[in-house]
């Protein structure tokens, strides 16, 4: 798992974009690696959080926005909690994901991006999460039709999956999404 920056062109302004999206900066990072040591997903990452902090500093846009790690982050906040330099690493991960998302970069873990899109669609339709519809729409997006079928049946039997949506402030929710995402897309522009 090397840094792989050698020979790659830096994208000036990338760090500024990340800081703008995150409302926080990775500059104070002194590469202690505590974030990666405590990360529950560490075995699955292609770049450790401290490598990402460093790559952001070096304006290595392509390496960061194309990696898997930013999509695997479970937002458990362990890294942010333990950072001795007070870097809000989880927010920087969010910012990188947001930049990849709004700039249309191919996501390193497509199913996670599909889950986000399915959730947005769900909330804009109902104002609340309608889980049965969310699962169906996620399957349509990922093509993994048989994934967790047995589990789904078990949950149905236990009455855990409601078959009826509950609606709340649908037009207001839709307007919140529309306005917020418009501002965010502007912010994500180079």
């Amino acid at each position, binding site marked *: 798992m090397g840094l792989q920056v050698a020979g790659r062109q830096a994208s000036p302004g990338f760090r500024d974009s990340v800081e703008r999206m995150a409302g926080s900066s990775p500059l104070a990072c002194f590469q202690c690696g505590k974030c990666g040591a405590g990360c529950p*997903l560490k075995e699955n990452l292609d770049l450790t959080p401290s490598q990402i902090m460093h790559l952001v500093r070096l304006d290595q846009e392509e390496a960061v926005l194309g990696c898997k790690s930013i999509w*695997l982050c*479970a937002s458990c906040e362990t890294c942010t909690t333990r950072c001795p330099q007070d870097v809000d690493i989880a927010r920087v991960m969010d910012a990188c994901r947001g930049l990849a998302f709004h700039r249309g970069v191919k996501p390193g873990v497509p199913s996670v991006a599909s889950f986000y899109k399915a959730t947005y669609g769900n909330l804009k339709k109902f104002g609340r999460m309608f889980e049965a519809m969310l*699962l169906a729409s996620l399957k349509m997006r990922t093509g993994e039709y048989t994934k967790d079928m047995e589990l789904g049946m078990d949950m149905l039997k236990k009455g855990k999956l409601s078959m009826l949506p509950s609606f709340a402030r649908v037009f207001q929710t839709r307007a919140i999404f529309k306005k917020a995402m418009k501002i*965010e897309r502007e912010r994500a522009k180079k």
Partner: protein
Amino acid sequence: MRTSYFPGCSLHSTSGEYDKSFRAVSALLDVDLVEPKKWICCGTTPAHATSRLLGAALPLKNLSIVEEEGFKEVVVPCAACFSRFKSADHEARHDPELANQVEEVIGSRYGHSVKVMHPLEIFGDGAGQVPFAHKVTRPLAGLKVACYYGCLLTRPPKVMQFDNAEYPMSMDRLVAALGATPIDWAYKVECCGASLALTISDVVVGLVHKIIEDARARGADAIAVACPLCHVNLDSRQKDVEKKFGTKPDMPVLFFTQLMGLAMGIEPAALGLARHLVDVSRLIATVA
């Protein structure tokens, strides 16, 4: 006590038993729960993961509704909603530009007058804001419980201001006040993988395996949780753990409110205990 109560999407569906047991216990303790009128989803991970603004706007819309309804506090049992509410409140307080944009997006200015509380905070160790020790009629004697806090109740501590981030004890104290024995273990704040269960579930199965194995190795009879995502992952992935690791977890996973209900003599059916995938009837028989 009369308080605003934000259930969130999970407590109205997959984790209906958390809502049911929290309501049953609250009724017994004369806590009057009032849902905000037409509350909306807090946006959960997908909102903050791609937009800090959207991640703040959805919770603050809900908090504005609570504020308009005249409540000074809102109780939020779902750890994910609780975390989103507190984070949005914190970020908007400390970032005026974000606060202005949220106002533009939701069409009103939130006044930050509502205190976001978790049920663990209002119940405390039995002698807190809402005392419950006097209602414990069937102490859970002999029951060893691993209290699992997961990620979002305590982290990040700067925002959550909830107990100790690395080794919290509030749920342990509550469980002890119910007559049970909380155990000392290593995974109480480890992550279960949360919503990755829907996408890369294999990773979640590995994390669930580690958590349950530690609880079992230390003699726990059950795991107590305070988060719908923790619950669904720990309770529903045990078959997958069995397939992948060849172990037989068979570990009952209960919401702490269900344990409270059992200790207070509330009927299991009124606590939604039959909704779990891992059977809890043996455990109920032990404590009854």
